[in-house]
């Protein structure tokens, strides 16, 4: 994943907090709002190539009247995605984000390893580390993701 410009916006924080069911009034206050702890995940909105967002005029794997038969486009960065699931997520906060900040993010692929799962068959894990930097170039959040791809649907976790 590479994101050139991830603007931290009050309205986005407000809607994100609602979506995670967090009634903390700080997220509703344009003067005091800070980003909730998992908010940088929403940088996907600003990744032009993010493969889990339908693109205008392009085939999409989700159903219409019936399944479309479209398979997922390739894409990395860990996390969920047709056959891939999110196994771990870790954040380190160097400072907290507020509306007006403009971040950029770069992801470095990490280790890859395999394991035999109890239910889902062969599991292939891959790691990625994303560094989020602010408008001054300072590191503000470091995020580590571990994604897992399974042979079969994993109905009770990987």
């Amino acid at each position, binding site marked *: 994943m590479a994101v050139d410009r991830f603007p931290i916006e009050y309205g986005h924080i407000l809607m994100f907090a609602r979506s995670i*069911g967090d009634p903390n009034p700080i997220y509703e206050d344009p003067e005091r709002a800070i980003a*909730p702890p998992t908010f940088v*995940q*929403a940088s996907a909105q600003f990744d032009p190539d993010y493969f889990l967002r339908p693109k205008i005029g392009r085939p999409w794997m*989700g159903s219409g009247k019936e399944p479309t038969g479209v398979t997922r486009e390739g894409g990395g960065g860990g996390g*969920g995605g*047709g056959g891939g699931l999110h196994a771990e997520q870790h954040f380190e906060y160097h400072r907290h984000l507020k509306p007006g900040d403009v971040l950029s993010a770069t992801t470095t692929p990490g280790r890859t390893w395999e394991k035999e799962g109890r239910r889902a068959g062969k599991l292939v894990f891959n790691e990625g580390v994303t560094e989020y930097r602010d408008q001054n170039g300072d590191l503000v959040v470091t995020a580590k993701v571990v994604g897992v791809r399974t042979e079969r649907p994993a109905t009770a976790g990987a």
Partner: protein
Amino acid sequence: MTLKAIDVEVGHTHSQVLVTDLKRTQIVQYAGTSGDYNPLHTDEIFATKVAGYPSVFAHGMLTMGMTGRLVTDYVGDGQLTRFGGRFTSQVFPGDTLTGTLTVEATRDEDGGKVVDLKVSTVNQDGVEVFAGTATARVES
């Protein structure tokens, strides 16, 4: 409000219900705000007929986001220095999730006091869905 080191006792636990009878609509809301539109989470036809799951299921990051509330409600806003964990089981519509944090340690870090927390979120059957840790600054 910031937690004070003097008020933090190792072994202390705090639990909170994070969601009751999780609605598909909330999963849709999270897809919209996070930008993760994977149809596994919002498209019943895709999740069941194409991917072979019993139904749609929540984004792991929705569970982690809900669990984050447990932590920030306890330590205060803007105090977290680390938060992470593993997604240990899937969360389905209808699930009721309860998060529990346990104070593991208080210690010095970067010239201030911090508290280390163990965090666990379970569903209505007691199955753990998120297992993590968090570290936050506290007032000394």
